[in-house]
């Protein structure tokens, strides 16, 4: 029987690896579509790689979160670093989900203008950044150090909203999802 600690290491390595490749691919997509990198034939390749790896990392993320909670010493969320890890991973999950849904429903049109290209790449890169920060917080929690320690990130401080604010934000988020989903279906060429 595999222990939660080992399973957490496996799942986080999958997440971090996949998201890292996605980050590199989104960066190249952005440079290609903005004309900074003069290799238009690479665009479809990096477009596919970016979204495939993002989807793969996204699929592994719930396993990483759940195994992380199981393998943490003590009962439940007993450290501010664990809470920040939870917030960062869920934020990254949201960015990745939005990025993948828009690519799925809007197709290649996400690359049609400079603004939409920039926004799409930025959302993908934000997902990657959130996940890498989560991994960094994990390193700080488990080993007391991380590569991103040079940034002196305040992992020990938690910005926790009152539950009423969180509930309002949750409802607002769900409403935005529903409305934008309807709008996307009106725009989408995928029927």
């Amino acid at each position, binding site marked *: 029987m595999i222990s939660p600690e080992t399973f957490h290491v496996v799942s986080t390595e999958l997440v971090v690896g996949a998201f890292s490749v996605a980050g590199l691919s989104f960066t190249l997509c952005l440079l290609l579509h903005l004309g900074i990198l003069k290799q238009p034939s690479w665009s479809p390749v990096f477009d596919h790689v970016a979204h495939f790896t993002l989807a793969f990392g996204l699929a592994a993320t719930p396993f990483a979160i759940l195994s992380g909670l199981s393998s943490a010493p003590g009962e439940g969320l007993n450290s501010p670093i664990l809470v920040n890890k939870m917030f960062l991973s869920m934020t990254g999950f949201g960015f990745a989900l*939005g990025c993948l849904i828009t690519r799925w429903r809007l197709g290649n049109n996400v690359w049609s203008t400079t603004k939409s290209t920039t926004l799409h790449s930025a959302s993908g890169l934000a997902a990657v950044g959130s996940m890498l920060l989560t991994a960094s917080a994990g390193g700080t929690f488990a080993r007391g150090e991380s590569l991103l320690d040079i940034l002196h990130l305040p992992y020990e401080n938690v910005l926790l909203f009152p*539950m009423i604010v969180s509930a309002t934000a949750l409802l607002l988020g769900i409403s935005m999802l529903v409305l934008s989903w309807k709008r996307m279906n009106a*725009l989408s060429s995928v029927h």
Partner: protein
Amino acid sequence: MKSRIHTVLVLSLLLVCSAFGAAEPGGNGDSIQDMQCGGACHGDASINETSSAILSLTSPATIYVGIPTTLTLTATNLEPSSTRLIGLFLLTDMTGHSDTPQDAGWEILSDVNGGAMNYIEQKLSPGQNETSISWVIRASTLGSTTFHAAIHHGGGSSSPFFGTTAMGFEVSVEPVPENLPRLAADFTPPTLRELDTSTELNIQTQFTDSMQFEWKSEDGFITTSLVNSTGDNSWTATLPAALQPTTVQWRVILEGEGPQQTTPWFTLAAEESSWEVSENAVYLQAFALLFMTAGIVITLQTRLTPKSTPSKYDETPVVLEELALETPPSPTHATISDSTPPPLPAAGLPIGWTEAQWNTYGHDYLAGKYGGGQL
């Protein structure tokens, strides 16, 4: 050929990077670990270099079954990395697995860092090249056990260093003499306490008529505290509150019908009280962040993406392309209305035309678009 060379270079670079990332310079924390961890769990065991440290184990001459005893590891000739961090293992064989004292039927009651682990990390002071640490252990069965110690640390190079005792240290466990004053066989000393609160220790003994309680802080000064009897072979003693994370050590001197007994020093670490948070609030905020970020991304993307999206059934571009191929090239308006005057026909200006009219409308006349006729 060039691409192959590049591939080999990249793969070589990746292999070199794996060696650099093999060790954990920040340590791994105290824990229960077998020797395999010291040899390989932070990387391939084959990349380990041999530590120059000299390790030796010592214990009291007589060890009784069920009675705590101290096992001391002395490490000399240490050459740690710049982090000055070393990891020390107490083991019962060198097979690499199932080799912790617990696997051999021993119980670790206390370690020097305020836990009950067989793997201990220590940070050496600058210039310090030797150290000595102790474990308080208890045997559950009679017989002999061979103990080993191992060390794991960084060094000048990127490779981790690993070393073990030159030979095993054998201890024999003897039966307890009758009426020997001792701690109860099921007594387990606490290893942690909270800051800012005094600690009352409840101690159970056997064959004990009186008890003396001693404790010392990290400066080594020994203090005696009052002991209260709370029943037959049951005692309480109080340790003063710790104001900062630190360790104290305590022991008791037991007197009864048998010879006087002094227990090992048990280590008690003070730490800040555990951090607490409303888990419901955390989970609610986490899901709110998920839906908010996803919602914002999708909303913005749908607004910034152009509405005139061609359907996949729309073949207009293909049809236009085909039409363009079929239509012969014709002079465009731009070429016709060139500012250059058109050449005059051989018969001269058409009848009734002025030169100014020819300069303006001559191109249309020549193209047959003027006046409905061809020249």
